[in-house]
């Protein structure tokens, strides 16, 4: 663990020394909670419609797929037509596209970002690498099954899939959302221990709280 995360003894302005334990003192330790849908079905349906019509993608490119996302903003594909847009902060995003191979180092950042997104949130795996490792199937540093680590709502196969495939994927995702089946965040909270165990199995220097609020 890095130095700045180690316990340290500091001296207050009044001269009294005390311990600071960064992981406890600086990070919230609460586990994630499951959040039930709205009580009224009609309300939840409205919400799901709105969610499906307003997919805010976290601007986080993990692999070569990141380059396939850019054309979506251009006049040729213009994903904005479909209510899709990109946000630079996970707090405001509700769709995380894992765009390609995912190294262990990046996985840690992906987990962090994913956990900083708010419920409901959706994960789309892009390309074969997220499905089974793809051409990196025997790499020492690339995870092979994304859904071991995060609840994935949708895979878009290909190496790499074209932007058209992505657009089709968005439409499919919208269907899933509207049907109320995109409950990945709740799944993650429910199976939190299992996900954490998987994550910690590959991330050897786990230097963050279990849930990154």
């Amino acid at each position: 663990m890095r130095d700045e995360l180690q316990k340290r003894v500091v001296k207050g302005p009044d001269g009294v020394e005390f311990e600071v334990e960064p992981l406890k003192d600086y990070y919230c330790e609460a586990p994630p909670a499951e959040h039930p849908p709205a009580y009224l079905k009609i309300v939840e349906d409205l919400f799901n419609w709105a969610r499906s019509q307003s997919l805010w993608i976290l601007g986080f490119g993990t692999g070569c797929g990141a380059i396939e996302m850019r054309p979506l903003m251009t006049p040729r594909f213009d994903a904005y037509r479909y209510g899709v847009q990109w946000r630079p902060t996970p707090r405001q995003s509700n769709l995380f596209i894992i765009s390609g191979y995912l190294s262990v180092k990046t996985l840690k950042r992906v987990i962090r970002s994913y956990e900083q997104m708010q419920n409901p949130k959706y994960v789309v795996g892009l390309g074969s690498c997220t499905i089974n490792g793809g051409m990196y199937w025997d790499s020492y540093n690339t995870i092979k099954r994304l859904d071991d680590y995060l609840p994935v709502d949708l895979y878009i196969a290909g190496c790499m899939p074209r932007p058209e495939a992505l657009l089709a994927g968005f439409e499919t995702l919208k269907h899933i959302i509207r049907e109320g089946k995109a409950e990945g965040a709740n799944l993650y909270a429910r199976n939190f221990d299992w996900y954490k165990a998987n994550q910690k199995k590959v991330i050897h220097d786990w230097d963050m709280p279990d849930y990154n609020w």
Partner: protein
Amino acid sequence: MDFDWMKIPYALLTLFIVVNYGMLQNALIAKIGARVGRRRGIPIWQNYADLIKNYSIRSSITHGVMYYLGPVFRLSGGVGLLLFVPSLYGSEMFSNLSFAGDLILALYFIFFGTLGMALGAAESGHPYAAIGITRGLQQVSAAELPMALAVFSVALQYQTLSVTEIVAAQQGGFQNWTLFTNPLAVAAAMLSFLGSMMRPPFDVVLAPQEIPIGPPTEYHSSYLALMQTNRAIFPIAKIVIYMNLFFGGATIWPEFFLKVFLIYMVSVLVGVVHPRFRVEQSIRWFLVWAVPIGILSIVLV
């Protein structure tokens, strides 16, 4: 106290109209921006979907009391600003709550939301939020100056600080608008207007690539929803002031919509074709180009 309680439903009606108009107008303007880039752009109802989506987000976090209150301040600032200024001239129904104060109240109330938002964003502890706020404050401090000069020039011109009376003085044909009777003041004010609309070249506050969206970096779900609501109201409330001071005000809603839209378009037209200023560049720009015009308008009025 002889308070006319009917003012409250009337004010709420104004609010309702303006919120909806603001949502649609924002979408329309986004579409116009998209067409400039040869895209089709978002659907016209996209803002509603986004708003409902954000209210429907089930979880949220809070960094503390001020963080929690920040968006409340923000939206209160927008709503208050809208309601402190009469929307339609000559309409008892849509004079809102302007009995509480005059133009000065409106101008200073703009800061209410800004301050609350800044405090809330700052409590998130995010450095980008703080950087964004300082940029915003610095830029606004320079951008406000021509506006203040212009307002002052107008107040001197009409010898009143009451918005209603200023509008009244501009009635009877467009040649009576301040735009034509005091063009320098209008010029200064419109340059200031560019600076306050968070559009290029004055949008370094948000700078998505560098300090992801600046102050609201940490805001999400219903907080963000409140702020989105404000985004629909606040620019319009501000433009209403400009409209009343410089462009003859409005007597009916269509006129209101048209004028607000056209004034808004000024900043859009400038914005879509300009790159971005750094903060010190925009400070200098306002002081060198806009302020002298404002000074001239004061001296010559």
